[in-house]
């Protein structure tokens, strides 16, 4: 397909489909994340990107036969490799023999959180998750370094007149969005703090929170959104998230336990674990939400600048 727009719409459908697949495979937390990321944010980012890079693909001049041959050979080798794999759904597979039983049987006594995914994510493998958060933070900084443009401050009057002309156009959308956005923010907080008991947690809540802000920015204009949420403020927030996560680890280190071992945070080890998980999820949520907002603001701001430049050129 040569029309990139169609490609992106179909990849959005693909994201929705894979999320319902995750639900049917019992991975509710993963489905939650894929729902908020794959279906919403990634489709949007790709769309913004193609509005900047052009919508059609040139027909390629070289023959795809070589590529096809490589793909078929690799694929058949991989399929040959699967012949020794354990069968789908068998409980005897090696993956279910080593650490998983311990997580399933002991996590209630050791961590005291019903959602095993949260307890593994935030307690048993907290160091790993710390690495992931740093990767996300770094990617956000990378986008910032690549795309941030010096913004010419526009006149407030101009913004207001622009807003008025937009207001007539999307009246119904704006009213519905005004009713929905507080609900979405509230729901994000629910996901953040209910992550111990049901599907949810910092990653999902951060993405949902960012989605609400993105909705606001799309309907009410970038400049209004920037006045509500300052760019440097949100950069500070991203850093605070990572620091919060790290400092929880350092505190437990200073108190004579291992890095990110929360039992020390309170007199009762279980309560300490609860406190630690809460703080860590909060740090993750801060970082993810602010990095997503940073990414979107920079893409959209870049696009606005380009359009302004083109308009000036054509005039």
């Amino acid at each position, binding site marked *: 397909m040569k029309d990139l727009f169609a490609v992106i719409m179909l990849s959005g459908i693909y994201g929705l489909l894979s999320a319902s697949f995750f639900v049917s495979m019992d991975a509710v937390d993963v489905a939650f994340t894929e729902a908020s990321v794959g279906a919403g944010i990634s489709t949007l980012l790709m769309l913004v990107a193609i509005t900047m890079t052009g919508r059609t693909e040139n027909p390629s001049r070289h023959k795809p036969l070589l590529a096809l041959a490589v793909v078929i050979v690799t694929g058949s080798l991989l399929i040959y490799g699967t012949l020794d794999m354990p069968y789908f759904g068998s409980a005897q597979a090696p993956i279910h023999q080593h650490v998983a039983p311990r997580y399933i049987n002991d996590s209630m006594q050791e961590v005291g959180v019903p959602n095993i995914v949260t307890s593994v994510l935030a307690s048993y493998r907290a160091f790993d998750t710390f690495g992931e958060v740093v990767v996300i933070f770094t990617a956000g900084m990378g986008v910032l370094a690549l795309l941030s443009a010096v913004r010419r401050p526009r006149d407030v009057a101009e913004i207001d007149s622009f807003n008025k002309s937009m207001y007539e156009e*999307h009246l*119904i*959308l704006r009213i*519905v969005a005004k*009713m*929905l956005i507080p609900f979405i923010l509230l729901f994000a907080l629910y996901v953040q703090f209910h992550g111990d008991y049901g599907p949810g947690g910092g990653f999902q809540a951060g993405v949902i929170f960012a989605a609400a802000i993105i909705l606001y920015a799309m309907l009410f204009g970038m400049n209004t959104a920037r006045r509500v949420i300052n760019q440097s403020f949100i950069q500070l927030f991203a850093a605070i998230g990572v620091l919060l996560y790290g400092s929880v680890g350092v505190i437990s280190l200073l108190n004579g336990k291992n890095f990110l071992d929360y039992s020390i945070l309170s007199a009762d080890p279980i309560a300490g674990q609860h406190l630690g998980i809460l703080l860590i999820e909060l740090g993750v949520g801060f970082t993810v939400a602010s990095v997503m907002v940073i990414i979107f603001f920079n893409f959209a701001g870049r696009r606005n600048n380009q359009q302004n430049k083109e308009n000036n050129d054509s005039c």
Partner: protein
Amino acid sequence: MNISSVLLLLIGSFLCISGGVGILRFPDFYTRMHAVGVTETLATAMILIGLMLQNPDGLVVVKLMIILLMTLFISPTASHALASAAVHNNLMPELDNKEDNKKVKSSNP
């Protein structure tokens, strides 16, 4: 209780399928939009109410109610936005309604 739930689920599935046939078979964008927009809300409501009757205890019903409310808000709004965007991009304003429609059909075969 159970019979009514089964009935509602059946009606919901039927409406869903009719919407699906509509989106496949109808000739142009606006009729497809009509088929989907009309059946979608009602079918969702039917299926969700059917599910509510299946499991009438506290939290589940509340969550289903929230989903239903969201759908009632969101689905017509999205349809409205989609239709108005389509009209906005395909047509010159200040035309008579019938001529508008003809023009839409000729530009979207």
